């Protein structure tokens, strides 16, 4: 698909630009609204660029939500979950990809199958388990499961380990390296891009998660930013300026993190995760 006539190229550009504007406009509107004073919100025609810029919305947002407490909570939950998947998922993925044992393949198929079990299906019994051990209200129900593995990330790690050359481990084995040595000294260092990928995904999933914290956290000081933002909107559902400011603040960390990490693993993210 190389030879495009100039006319066709212009057509493609036009289509992309029109759609692109459609995709960017909401973002622009979010930032623009977050800087608007109240008097410029409910007017016709809409004000595109607020004048003067009203940074007060951001102050309002930060004081209205327990922003710094909840920021800390979100960081703790997302950070520890990320550590959890980085420890647990390569272990299982490696076992599925490169070690041979009875029932391995059946267990792998089961792992793929549970990937499709919707969370609402298991959330009631899970809540009952955590309430029986008195951990509802703490961060632990949101963190502990990641230390035992997340099916999708195990699948990704398996795909990654499968494509590493076999010679590596054979050489190490001849040199007298045992299985744990092979894993920790050779395989794990090689899969840094994959680890970065699943770590980033998990961080973003935890950061953006709503249903999990909604079930387990019941106190404003233990809320994550998502719950805090939802509570803020429920309390003042037409304070669009401060609401948009809060949204910008909550989105910014993941967006920055994404682009920071992405630079390091441009290839990692698409490594044949789809094909079986």
């Amino acid at each position, binding site marked *: *698909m190389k030879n495009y006539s100039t006319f066709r190229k212009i057509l493609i550009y036009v289509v*992309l630009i029109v*759609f692109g504007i459609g*995709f960017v406009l*909401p*973002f622009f509107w*979010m930032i623009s609204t977050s800087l608007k004073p109240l008097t410029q*919100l*409910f007017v016709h*025609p*809409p004000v595109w660029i607020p004048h003067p810029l009203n940074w007060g919305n951001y102050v309002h947002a930060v004081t209205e939500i327990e922003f710094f407490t909840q920021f800390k909570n979100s960081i703790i939950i997302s950070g520890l979950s990320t550590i959890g998947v980085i420890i*647990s998922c390569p*272990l*299982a993925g490696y*076992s*599925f990809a490169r*070690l*041979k*044992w*009875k029932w391995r393949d059946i*267990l792998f198929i*089961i*792992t793929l199958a549970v990937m*499709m*079990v*919707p969370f*609402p*299906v*298991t*959330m*009631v*019994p899970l809540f*009952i*388990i955590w309430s029986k051990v008195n951990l509802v209200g703490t961060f632990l129900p949101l963190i502990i*499961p990641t*230390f*035992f*593995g997340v099916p999708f990330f195990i699948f990704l790690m398996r795909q990654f380990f499968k494509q590493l050359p076999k010679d590596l481990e054979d050489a190490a084995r001849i040199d007298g390296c*045992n*299985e744990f040595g092979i*894993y920790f000294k050779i395989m794990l260092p090689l899969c840094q891009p994959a680890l970065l990928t699943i770590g980033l995904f998990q961080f973003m999933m935890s950061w*953006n998660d*709503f*249903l999990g914290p909604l079930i387990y956290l019941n106190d404003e000081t233990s809320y994550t*930013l*998502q719950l805090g*933002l*939802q509570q803020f*909107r*429920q309390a003042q559902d037409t304070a669009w300026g401060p609401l948009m400011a809060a*949204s*910008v603040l*909550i*989105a910014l960390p993941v*967006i920055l993190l994404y682009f920071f990490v992405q630079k390091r693993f441009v290839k990692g993210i*698409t490594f*044949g*995760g*789809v*094909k079986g």
Partner: protein
Amino acid sequence: MIFSLLLHKKGLCWVSSHTNLSSKEKVNIKKGTSKKKYLSTESRRARAGYLFALPWIFGLLAFFAYPLLSSIYYSFTNYNIISETQWIGLDNYIALFKDDLFWKGISNTLLFALMQVPLSILVGVSLAILLNIPLIAQGVFRTVFFLPSLLPLIATTILWQWLLNPQFGLVNSLLGKIGIDGPAWLGSPVWSKPSLVIMTLWVLGNAVLIYLAGLQDISQEYYEASEIDGANWFQKAWNITLPLLTPVIFFNMIMGVINALQEFTLPYALTYGTGNPAESLLFYSMYLYNNAFMYMKMGYAAAMAWILFIVVMVVTLILFKTSGRWVFYQGDE
């Protein structure tokens, strides 16, 4: 525990059947004293395999298998955490079938899935094909379409609630400029679900990324061969790109259907769990959540969970069964 026993046994079996050891040495092995010395590479790998998978096996049992199975039990009880649990047989299921909101949840969710899944495939594939064309500023375009999917869903819902505000929203004000009197969007029972679909299409970036990866896997040879045969752009897209992209489309379709059937955050955040206007946004998972955590009818919710599970399984199975007719794999004859 079962697994550690098993691997123990397997190691021993292997040793006793494949090596000629004196009985004394065998006794040593059974005691586990000098076992390691005699294990072959293969059984050592098997042992490592079990050990490496052990945390996940525990996770699988504790956080997937047990909840799934125990919710069958809970669905036959009136479990509510506070008072004593009683076995009530099929009462929950019978009550569900008489519950208007249950049916409302099902029809809302199915309607939403029927709109959302085909549209997201159409838009996603089209965008991916456009973004795969080598252009100047290709990276900028890709970023533009991917960016929205990074936004936390709660922020997305607030933003779109403001954009779709019937009186002062940007969307209706732009529609007004071209002479269209915009609907009430989230305030209207008819337009509330399409509004939700628009939001999900805006955050399509992840699916587009997967389609792009699929497009890059298609071998250039097919295109070169077709060019020799004089195929035009459309013929190439229709006869090569699309058929060879079907495995990826199929993957995204399965995931899309499963996600649509369990949609929770968007309608919950937008309506604070009420599902209004006129319960048009009362989604199945939301009603399940309300039953479990607002009305504390956990047995009832467990019954709903099992019905959801069965529906998802049946739909997935049907999709898999029919996939043979329209999914093509590169290299297949």
